């Protein structure tokens, strides 16, 4: 008898607790207003790219693939898209290698000056992108080592702004990894390299892949650093879009945007499979 009463009480208590923690309706309305602000411009781009008329009206005149086909058959737009893809892929590979190696040292060893070293690697995020691009451009011109107006020069700028993301993501994976597993392998006779390769690498590979995806997408959408480093022959998509928005404002730009949106959504779906987004409490900047 007493037992039944207790469980009923517990149920009531847990229900009260649940309703206590339900989100107030005013906050929910505010949250959805923010979602509209975040996503409405993106929806407009998709509609403008699939619209059949020259100008987007609401409701749209009709759907057509006219601008998508215009994008896919335009050498300039496809060139910019392909260039951004190539730039982002090269950046991703270099950033992932450099960043993972640095993250291993930064999170596996305790040594004096470690926090300073961590700040050293995060500092490109504090510097405004336009200033970084300018500093690199001046450096390339003054040193005259063939980096000015080159793809390599652009890649260097992009690696600097993407590497901190790789370091952050891989460090998080390494912190979550239990070092005693590797020590166990060592005590069973594995060499340091074997223990690292067979035990640690498989355990942090999801974090590394997530970092690589982030590096790709940050590079693909990078405008500020590219501003001073791009040339008419080396035009990443964001710069091509900017030029189009300033001078012509054609719906082909919206069609190009659709393909960029697809790329971003796919990358974020991949990231969400690799790492828990719940842990993603923003990027630490200092």
């Amino acid at each position, binding site marked *: 008898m007493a037992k039944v009463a207790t469980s009923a009480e517990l149920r009531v208590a847990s229900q009260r*607790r649940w309703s206590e923690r339900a989100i*107030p309706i*005013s*906050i*929910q309305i*505010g*949250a959805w207003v*923010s979602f509209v*602000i*975040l*996503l*409405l*411009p993106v929806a*407009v*781009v998709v509609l*403008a790219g699939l619209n059949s008329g020259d*100008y*987007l*009206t*609401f409701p749209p005149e009709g759907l057509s693939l006219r601008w998508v086909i215009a994008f896919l058959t335009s050498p300039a737009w496809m060139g910019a898209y392909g260039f951004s893809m190539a730039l982002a892929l090269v950046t991703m590979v270099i950033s992932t290698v450099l960043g993972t190696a*640095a993250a*291993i*040292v930064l999170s596996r*060893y305790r040594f004096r*000056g470690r926090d300073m*070293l961590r700040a*050293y690697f995060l500092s*490109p995020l*504090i*510097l*405004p*992108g*336009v*200033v*970084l691009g*300018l500093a690199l451009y*001046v450096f390339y011109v003054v040193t005259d080592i063939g980096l000015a107006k080159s793809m390599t020069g652009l890649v260097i700028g992009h*690696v600097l702004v993407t*590497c901190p993301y790789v370091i952050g993501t891989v460090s998080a994976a390494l912190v979550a990894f239990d070092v005693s597993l590797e020590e166990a392998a060592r005590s069973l006779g594995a060499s340091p390299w074997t223990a*690292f390769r067979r035990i640690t690498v498989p355990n942090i590979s999801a974090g590394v892949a997530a970092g690589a995806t982030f590096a790709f997408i*940050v590079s*693909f*959408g990078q*405008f*500020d650093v590219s501003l*001073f480093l791009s040339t008419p022959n080396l035009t990443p*998509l964001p710069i091509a*879009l*900017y030029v189009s928005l300033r001078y012509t404002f054609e719906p082909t*730009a919206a069609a190009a*945007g659709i393909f*960029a949106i697809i790329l971003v959504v796919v*990358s974020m*779906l991949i990231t969400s499979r690799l790492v828990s*987004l*719940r842990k*993603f*409490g*923003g990027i630490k*900047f200092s």
Partner: protein
Amino acid sequence: MNTMDLTSSPYQNSFGRSVRAFLGGSRVFWLILPAFAFFLIFFFVPVLSLFLISLDKPVAGVVEPQWSFTATNFIRFFTRDTYYGAALRSIEMATLVALITLVLGYPLAFMIARTENPGRNTFYMILVLCAMQLDMVIRLYGLMVLLGDNGLINRALLDAGWIEEPLPLMYNFSGVVIGLVQFSLPLMVLSLIGVIRSINPSLEEAARSLGATRRAAFWRIIVPLSMPGILAGSLLVFAISISSYVVPALMGGWKVIVMPIHIYQQIAELGKWQFGAAIAVVLFATSVLAVVVYQRYAAITAGGRT
């Protein structure tokens, strides 16, 4: 910045000793070397060189250092109202953007932090991250279609007969602010989520059980405890708003001239490298100042527990 600190820091000797101890102790430490050298050569050297050039004698069209130190560029910046006016406008704009994104971002961050269903939580996070990662120029295309004189919003209001003239939503200060809010909102939300999630729900329950209304518990318990996230998010939004080139360039229609636009014009259009570098230094100093103010303020609010 930090390399400078290393050489002058009191830890120098012990730092050097611990590095040596490591190089002797473990070869794994060498893994950090490629990234360290890359950042030194392509980040710290160029940035410090840019700072040096800002102190150089201004010669139009010449980048190469003249090695004649002068403060001319900075004096020029702070004595012409075109330039220091741009700095003040940038600060005013970035502060306003930080406040608006805080008001807009807090409810969204709160909802995501308190959504316990894992599937729905991931869905919300993907929406925020996609909005953040999408190239800003593409988002600006959407904003321009919405806010232009002939845009969707003005068309709808004119057709409904609510207004006679199109509202000036774009190519002015408020247009730039709207653009920057859209740009920085995801960062604010991400900064707040972690802090709100880490607030122990039993604190709120304790306040409720002691008779506080829900509203009182929210304003007197939850909001003060999310202060670190509010500060970090506002600082981040301030720093990226003040540094944005593309949003003022497209949404301001060359009527809202802020520091990044001056930098680009001085360098790319006028060839005034030294003066452009000086504006870049002022821009950087302003965002660093925001970090310093934030850290001091954070130390006060945390009761010195930093």
